[in-house]
């Protein structure tokens, strides 16, 4: 009998299976590659878990989304099918609650991942494409959120989508494109649901998965970036742990924590289903967007008070577009690996972005509470 090349597996049939597989598909190369991968270990290592955490929530979305597909019906009967799913199907409320909560947690962990990447300056060469593919994924995550939000077609879903689509309609030349292609008519209707459904369950996943693969390939190729405090240390003083199995086990532990948090939130705070959307009913008092759109909502509100007419909306969209472009171009601007002046400007820019996002969000919620009371 040929000796197995996997240590410790000589005596059992698994070793022979391993060899049989290795000869045919090349398992050894993958194992060798995984063994060589290391993850830096330092005081900021905690932030390395948030990319994996985002993938965990994405996996939850895939599984719970497929389960929702079993009962969900897009089009005219959309609200009815969600109502049945929540109130008549065993554990339907839980599956939907998990899908909604995991969506929010995924957006949160993606943001943590992005900001930690930013402050660790992990976007610097040769990792620019990691940053850009990540921003592409973030854009798709927001589209996932926006398109999924409409699908139950309750009151909140209807008006959120209406306002969300109305803002780009005010940009020059966009109205016919959005009404004809995205919305399928002058108003949000069952035609829009059908389109958003196709976007949410086919088009976006089809685009998301290859980009995610590329994003992961970038991490594999270049490894994790280290913060500047580590970069300044001589190589002999830097510590690393093997990715497999050491870091992977810690990743799994983080996923377990994430699963527990998700289970508690989904079970204790079931995602509500509002009343059915009625285009002839007025928008309900205190209506506001999800927390991750709150900052844009509040900025538009503030600009609307200062600028006349639609100039507020156009100005707001321009500001966010400009901010987004600057955010994307940061790897080209902040290239130095020393503590140069550009590096400090980029760091301050990051702090400013976080501070204004938080301030606008808090102000937005404050105003919602004030209007309601």
């Amino acid at each position, binding site marked *: 009998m040929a000796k197995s090349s996997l240590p410790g597996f000589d005596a059992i049939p698994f070793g022979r299976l391993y060899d049989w597989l290795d000869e045919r598909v090349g398992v050894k190369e993958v194992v060798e590659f995984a063994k060589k991968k290391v993850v830096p270990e330092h005081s900021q290592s905690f932030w390395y878990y948030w990319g994996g955490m985002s993938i965990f929530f994405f996996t939850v979305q895939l599984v719970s989304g497929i389960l929702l597909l079993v009962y969900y019906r897009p089009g005219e009967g959309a609200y009815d099918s969600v109502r049945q799913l929540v109130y008549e199907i065993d554990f339907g409320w839980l599956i939907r609650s998990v899908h909604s909560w995991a969506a929010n947690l995924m957006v949160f962990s993606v943001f943590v991942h992005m900001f930690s990447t930013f402050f660790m300056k992990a976007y610097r060469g040769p990792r620019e494409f990691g940053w850009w593919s990540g921003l592409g994924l973030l854009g798709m995550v927001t589209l996932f959120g926006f398109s999924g939000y409409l699908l139950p077609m309750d009151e909140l879903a209807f008006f959120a989508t209406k306002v969300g689509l109305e803002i780009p309609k005010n940009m020059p030349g966009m109205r016919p494109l959005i009404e004809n292609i995205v919305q399928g008519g002058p108003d949000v209707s069952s035609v829009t649901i059908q389109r958003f459904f196709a976007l949410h369950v086919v088009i976006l996943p089809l685009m998301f998965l290859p980009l995610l693969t590329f994003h992961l390939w970038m991490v594999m190729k270049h490894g994790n970036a280290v913060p500047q405090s580590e970069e300044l240390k001589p190589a002999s003083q830097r510590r690393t742990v093997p990715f497999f199995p050491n870091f992977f086990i810690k990743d799994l532990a983080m996923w377990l924590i994430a699963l527990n948090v998700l289970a508690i939130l989904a079970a204790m705070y079931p995602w509500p289903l509002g009343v059915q959307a009625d285009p002839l*009913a007025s*928008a309900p008092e205190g209506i506001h967007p999800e927390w991750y759109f709150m900052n844009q909502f509040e900025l538009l509100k503030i600009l609307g008070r200062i600028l006349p007419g639609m100039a507020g909306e156009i100005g707001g969209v321009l500001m966010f577009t400009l901010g987004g472009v600057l955010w994307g171009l940061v790897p080209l601007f902040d290239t130095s690996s020393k503590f140069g002046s550009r590096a400090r400007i980029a760091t301050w820019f990051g702090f400013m972005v976080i501070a204004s996002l938080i301030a606008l969000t808090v102000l937005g919620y404050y105003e919602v509470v004030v209007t309601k009371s």
Partner: protein
Amino acid sequence: MPDITLDENTAATPDAAHPPEGVSRRGFIVQAALGAAGVCYAGAVAYPVYRYLAAPAQQAAELAAVKEVKIPEDKMPAPGTALMFRFGSRPTMLIHHKDGTMVCLTAVCTHLGCTVQYQPEQDHIHCACHGGTYDAHTGANISGPPPKPLQRFNVERANGEVLITRV
């Protein structure tokens, strides 16, 4: 007399009129033809797809072309209330004021398109999305972000019915 032959190599041969760094005439024609064919194919695919996707919007536009809407007597709003109905595809409101006058306005906020509501206590029209208000008699935008007044409709009362037509 030198024999001039126009064979395939002539166009590709560099000469004074066609410096070697430029694209040869033959190459240019081939590229232009390929480009034109590409545009034709792209158009032939994109146009039906665009029309296919835009069909519901076109149908809604035809539906919106209605000239008038009749409100029967039994649907008439009581004084101090408003009736919501569709004029074509747009939500529209018929306000019956306490003084007996009737005003018909489009119920879609001119800011970001939310459906507005009539508030009889304040005697104005309010949008809950971003807090815009309008005059309940004229439709003029009073405060908040709305950039334009609400569109008005003609209201004619005859035989207990109300006839709504475009201004």
